[in-house]
């Protein structure tokens, strides 16, 4: 017979009576959803202590995108050459990081096992699947300790947005919101969040006994933090609950200002946008008053490269490429993320600005001028779109795909005015977090 989730010492080592009772309460209540799955932190007590030390140490480190400030890089490269099969085949006479070849998602997709250091044990391996929009699906190898390290960077992001993770009061620390027809859902307890609850829920009505249970569960359990992608959060924002979380964490390549405004008005708390990839973990986060991502990891060196793979000057646009990372099972050596942006330094630190999740796409205006997709993103900023895509046909006509919104006509007029071509609207009937779409495509672009 399967043990009840609140007595699951295998997934939740070190679970005490208080935690067990807390978990039981989250699961066994009248308005709870049907939790379809099980999950846990899988951390041994000694690993929890190590995580605390890791978090303290990381909080005290400076973050720089200058190679010279990252003295850990040489040793990191040496270890990659020694222990990682893929990197062992490199010409190891390369003098510096800038001379090393870059690695793409396609390289990893061919055989991810070649990127896992040989000395690491496999008995507690876990995998995160990522489909992306590039056509190169990946199974990212990881470990419970690595998964738990995310908390270190999320806490840092919260702190930079004025939310102390020490001050979380509720029995439910985090609610991960999904909105899919089918979705992995579970309830758990987090030793790195004061032993408070963590639930992953699907706000699609399918996952609940009654649709109204969704708002009742939120109001009844008052999560301190809510996380999710913009699609899930917009769906969640439509539910009539009264609870206000302390912060909302989201991951989106392009959280439009209009969408952020809607979330902020609804939830009345900081909306923290994280630039995060399965391959790297959180790279940067939004901070108040700045429309860009502040770099989060002290052991992840970010470079911006041009099309030939050469580093560009700070402030110039190019492909975001990273070295290092906190996933011991996937050390990254000049990994080209496929995302584009600029690096900028100001008094608060290093930032990535104008982040776009794909190579640049150009759109042609009726007057024959070329506009970059960044210009289109600027234009769309004021609209509350959780998801969109724009395609330009060979004859210049445009097709805009967006979820139903009363501002649809205004959006299409704004685009038509800017580009001078007619814009056809294509409605996304069923929003779903599991359907990723490429935002910009063109039959005309000179770049895509």
């Amino acid at each position, binding site marked *: 017979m399967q043990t009840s989730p609140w007595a699951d010492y295998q997934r939740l080592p070190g679970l005490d009576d208080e935690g067990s009772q807390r978990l039981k309460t989250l699961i066994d209540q009248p308005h709870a959803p049907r939790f379809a*799955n099980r999950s846990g932190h899988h951390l041994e007590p000694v690993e929890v202590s190590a995580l605390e030390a890791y978090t303290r140490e990381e909080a005290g480190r400076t973050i720089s995108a200058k190679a010279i400030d990252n003295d850990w890089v040489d040793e990191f490269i040496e270890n990659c050459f020694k222990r990682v099969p893929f990197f062992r085949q*490199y010409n190891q006479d390369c003098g510096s990081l800038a001379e090393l*070849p870059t690695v793409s998602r396609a390289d990893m997709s061919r055989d991810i*096992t070649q990127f896992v250091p040989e000395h690491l044990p496999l008995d507690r*391996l876990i995998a995160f699947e990522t489909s992306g929009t590039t056509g190169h699906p990946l199974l990212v190898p990881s470990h419970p300790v690595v*998964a738990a390290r995310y908390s270190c960077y999320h806490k840092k992001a919260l702190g930079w947005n004025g939310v102390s993770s020490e001050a979380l009061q509720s029995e439910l620390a985090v609610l991960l919101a999904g909105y899919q027809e089918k979705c992995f859902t*579970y309830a758990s307890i987090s030793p790195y969040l004061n032993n408070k609850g*963590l639930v992953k829920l699907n706000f699609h009505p399918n996952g609940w006994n009654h649709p109204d249970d969704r708002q009742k569960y939120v109001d009844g359990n008052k999560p301190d933090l809510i*996380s999710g992608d913009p699609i899930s959060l917009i769906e969640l924002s439509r539910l009539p609950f009264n609870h206000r979380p302390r912060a909302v964490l989201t991951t989106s390549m392009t959280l439009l200002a209009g969408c952020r405004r809607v979330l902020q008005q609804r939830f009345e708390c900081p909306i923290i946008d994280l630039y995060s990839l399965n391959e790297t973990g959180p790279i940067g986060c939004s901070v108040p008053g700045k429309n860009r991502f502040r770099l989060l990891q002290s052991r992840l060196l970010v470079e911006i490269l041009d099309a030939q793979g050469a580093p560009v000057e700070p402030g110039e646009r190019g492909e975001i490429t990273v070295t290092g990372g906190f996933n011991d099972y996937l050390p990254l050596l000049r990994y080209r993320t496929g995302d584009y942006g600029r690096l900028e330094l100001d008094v608060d630190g290093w930032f990535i600005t104008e982040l776009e999740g794909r190579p640049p796409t150009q759109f042609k205006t009726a007057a024959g001028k070329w506009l970059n997709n960044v210009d289109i993103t600027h234009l769309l900023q004021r609209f509350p779109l959780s998801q969109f895509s724009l395609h330009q046909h060979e004859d210049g006509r445009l097709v805009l795909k967006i979820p139903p919104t009363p501002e649809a006509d205004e959006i299409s007029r704004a685009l038509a005015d800017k580009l001078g071509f007619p814009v056809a609207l294509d409605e996304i009937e069923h929003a779903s977090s599991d359907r990723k779409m490429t935002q910009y495509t063109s039959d005309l672009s000179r770049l895509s």
Partner: protein
Amino acid sequence: MSNTTGSADSTMQGPDINILHHRLTDYPKEWLDQKVAAGFVAIIHDAIFCRSAELKASDLEPFRRPPKQCDWYRLTLLIAYFIADDSFAELRFPAASLIDLLTGTAEELAAAGPTVLYLNDVDRREEFIRVVLNAIGLRPAGESENQAQDRLQAVSSQERLKVLKAAKLAEERSRKLREALAEKKAQESADKMMRE
């Protein structure tokens, strides 16, 4: 007359070993430069094309990676030069066998020593010749099957034997890792505060 071979299980008579020694000592010095020769893919194409009628453009993908990522390309180049010798002119091989030779065997030889060693050290040169011939189902002219196998064993360096052993272990780990990932994919993973 052309003969087709490609299997190491039963070998065919190949070129005279002395000719092959000379072929290696004549290796162009400029190809030993730090950078892999310009036109690398074209050289590989020609080397395969003149020994196999089945070559497809996509077969050349393994040779289009950045040379700095594949230091073993140096051995690929040496092998390509080696099999382009006129003494192989009458022989034909399955393209797959040549691709394996120019990738797997090249990697194995590269891990056991630098190119220059296989040119300057007479024992290692003989090892190179016998390993390459064996990989494409040949034995030196005038040698019986058994003689060729015995001599291959005799010249096999400790370095290469170590490489072969390590490669076997690596392959095994890679298989286990692949299986573990597939299994974990189907299962749950560990908690994270948010998902990408």
